[in-house]
């Protein structure tokens, strides 16, 4: 987990910006990659994956494609597909390189032709000790399976950053949503590191479904923070939340106007495979989901 890596002071890892699939990449996803690079002195690898299956499709004489604006069906021969992908990759890599230059973060670009998740898993396995995947494409309500597959198949990533379609900022407070006490320390440290890049303070949100549990966790958290060097720490907040309900998290992020957020994937708020619709409708900042 990145929080653990950050807390342990291990060698710097790598931010993998996952591009491909569509020509679209969220500007906020790219900015999130740079913020992580700055906060953890990591390099950013811009990985454009040419979906191999599309080339299999392009072999068919009936292969056609229709644009989002419905300008009519166009043939999809291999040569056209290759050209489209080459241009899309070049444009995205240039965008990333410019952002890297502005943020003083070293960036590398790579294009691979493979099945997307396999390519991502291989890229993360090649390098270590830790990787964080940034999903370049804006999150859509139907992406829950894709996200679940990512956590399932890309084992060497410590987390994934998603940016919603309504993203509008990467500056401001960092909200760390903690559901389990043992994650408190590392997530707090990670949030503090991120806050140095986002220019905000840290808002710690403890989440539980029982009041006694929350009170106990808050007491422990206060002790922990009092012992440590937590200059940027700004405040606690306890939220009662039922399982599989991202609404409380969404409300917290909206209220704090967060510039970045950390939460646990597969936990109480963002359950594995659960609908992402409530989140996509309110998520205004990048969200780092940790395992």
């Amino acid at each position, binding site marked *: 987990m990145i929080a653990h890596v950050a807390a342990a002071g291990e060698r710097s890892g790598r931010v993998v910006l996952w591009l491909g*699939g569509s*020509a679209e990449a969220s500007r906020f996803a790219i900015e999130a990659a740079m913020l992580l690079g700055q906060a953890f002195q990591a390099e950013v690898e811009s990985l454009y994956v040419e979906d191999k299956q*599309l080339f299999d499709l392009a072999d068919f004489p009936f*292969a056609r494609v229709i644009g989002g604006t419905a300008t009519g069906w166009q043939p999809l021969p291999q040569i056209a597909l290759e050209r489209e992908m080459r241009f899309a990759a070049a444009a995205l890599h240039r965008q990333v390189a410019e952002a890297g230059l502005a943020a003083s973060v070293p960036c590398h670009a790579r294009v691979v032709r493979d099945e997307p998740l396999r390519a991502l898993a291989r890229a993360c396995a090649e390098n270590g000790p830790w990787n964080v995947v940034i999903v370049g494409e804006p999150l*859509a*309500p*139907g992406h829950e399976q894709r996200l679940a597959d990512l956590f399932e198949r890309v084992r060497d990533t410590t987390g994934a950053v998603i940016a919603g*379609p309504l993203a509008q900022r990467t500056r401001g407070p960092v909200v760390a949503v903690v559901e389990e006490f043992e994650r408190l320390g590392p997530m707090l440290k990670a949030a503090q590191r991120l806050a140095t890049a986002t220019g905000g303070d840290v808002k710690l949100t403890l989440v539980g479904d029982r009041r006694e549990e929350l009170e106990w966790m808050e007491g422990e958290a206060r002790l922990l923070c009092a012992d440590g060097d937590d200059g940027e720490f700004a405040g606690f907040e306890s939220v009662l939340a039922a399982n599989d309900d991202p609404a409380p998290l969404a409300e917290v992020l909206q209220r704090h106007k967060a510039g970045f957020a950390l939460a646990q994937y597969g936990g109480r708020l963002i359950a594995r495979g659960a609908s992402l619709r409530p989140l996509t409708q309110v998520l205004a900042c990048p969200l780092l989901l940790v395992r």
Partner: protein
Amino acid sequence: MFFKRSKVDKKSAADPAAEPTGPVETAEAAETAVPVEAAAATAPAEPRLSVGAHTNAAGATDPASLGFKTTADLEPAHGPVGQTKAMDALSFGAGIKGSGFHMLVIGREGTGRRTAARAKLQEAGAKAGRPADWVYVSSFDPTGGFRALKLPAGTAKPFAEKMALAIDQLADALPAAFAADDYDLKRRKIEEEFRFSREDALEALRREAESQNIALLRTPAGIAVAPVLEGKVVKTDVFNNLPDGLRREVETKIAALEAEIEAILTERPDAEKERRARLVALNEQVAGRHVRAALEDTKAEFAEVAGVESYLKAAGRDLVRNAGLFVAPNGTQAAKLTRGAGTHPRFARYAVHTMATTSAAGGVPIVQEPNPTYANLFGRVELGTAADGEATVVRIKPGALHRANGGYLLIDGDALLDSAATAEALRRALEAEEIRFDPPASPIGTVGDEVPDLESIPLNVKLVVFGDAETQRRLAASNPQLRRMFKVEAVFEDAVARTKETVATFARVVAGIVEKHSLRPLDVAGVALLIDDAARKAGGNGKLSLGIADLTHVCREADHWAGSEGRDVISGADIERALRQRKAGEDLAEAS
């Protein structure tokens, strides 16, 4: 001059016994008498003065009998000498209530008829209440016309300023409101909801396709459909080895799915309509708050004025609908337009065009229009070109009728009759008692011939036309209907009988000229010379000429001579010199 007029009385000029007469009461005058006589030898003889009030045996005015030393001893008079009938007519015309009593002031140029008329009008007008103000405002309807709003006296300017201020405020507030995170998020939510609903439909289709071993794939160029087996796109060689029937079945399914995809992407008019409606509602919600706040002051101050509330409602609706005017097309803040935004051409439709307003000094307006063209009487509309190429009204300028509404309009009859169309338009306006903007040609001809529809403004004006006998004749011949509208006629005589009273008034009129033009006082000898000159101009038949303009000219010239010789009082010699100069000038004019 095209026509020369003889300055001498023909009857007197024909009399060989007529002797040049002139006052030689002072030593200075005696010394300067020679050139006058010399001039008289070559010029037609001056009429002999008759014996009358304040004259000696020769008919010359006796200064000693006038009873003052200088004009400083006299109460200045600014009215004409005599002219009782004319003055009574003016008093009646100026004071009578109700419409239709237009006045025709007849008399020779220089008889003081304008000054006298203005004095009477001021006297009558000061007693009357201030008339209402009028402004033109956009009707905000598809005609692009303008409504006339009647406002309490003196409030047109504050009303216009408040509206301009409201536009200034909106130029600040609206770009900020539309650039705010809150608005942006709401707008994007609507957009995303629309997109999500499309994505949902595609997702449902994807699942349906999956059950038929067909996948919807995303490519950089859009969406494609492919046959799959166990989640992987089927290789062509595998597909080609399928039985023909199965292949055709797959291809048919793919074609059907493609049609459905296309339908999802293109045929969603209801969803698109709803998206637009929600965006409009959001814009109206955000803009409406600021527009209401910006117009609040104006609304509160003019709540009682008929028509203002409905205008402000219409303006508010239009501002909300056109909030985009304040924001650049890409949603970023437009070029900063804060101070003076209210007068920017982009916001011309919200301008308040002041057509008539009165000052706090009170009284009704008295407006003199020296050049009564259609535009000067009825106003003009200045057109510009909007960003979309459409003609737009930039400014509506009031005419003399607007400015004089509720009071008096003074114009020169000959100048009016020079344009028969304008005279007829004026007649129609007076008859209908309304100012209707219907120019004979385009306003200024800059953009086509479009003339906006301006609501008529009720007209309540007394027309005062100045002219002479010839003007009367022209008027009767060219526009008899207009001629009949002058129910009051004030006829100024060229001369009045010389009596003690008229001589005394004449002296006071000279004192009035001295006061009005800040001249040195005239001594009694100078006044006597002026009286004799007036008597001579009247033909020497016991009358006094009433040429105030000429009298003023001589006094001013004499004042110059007195000043050049360092004297504090204008003497008879100065008057003598000025009269001599005038005579020389007249001779020169005759010769040319």
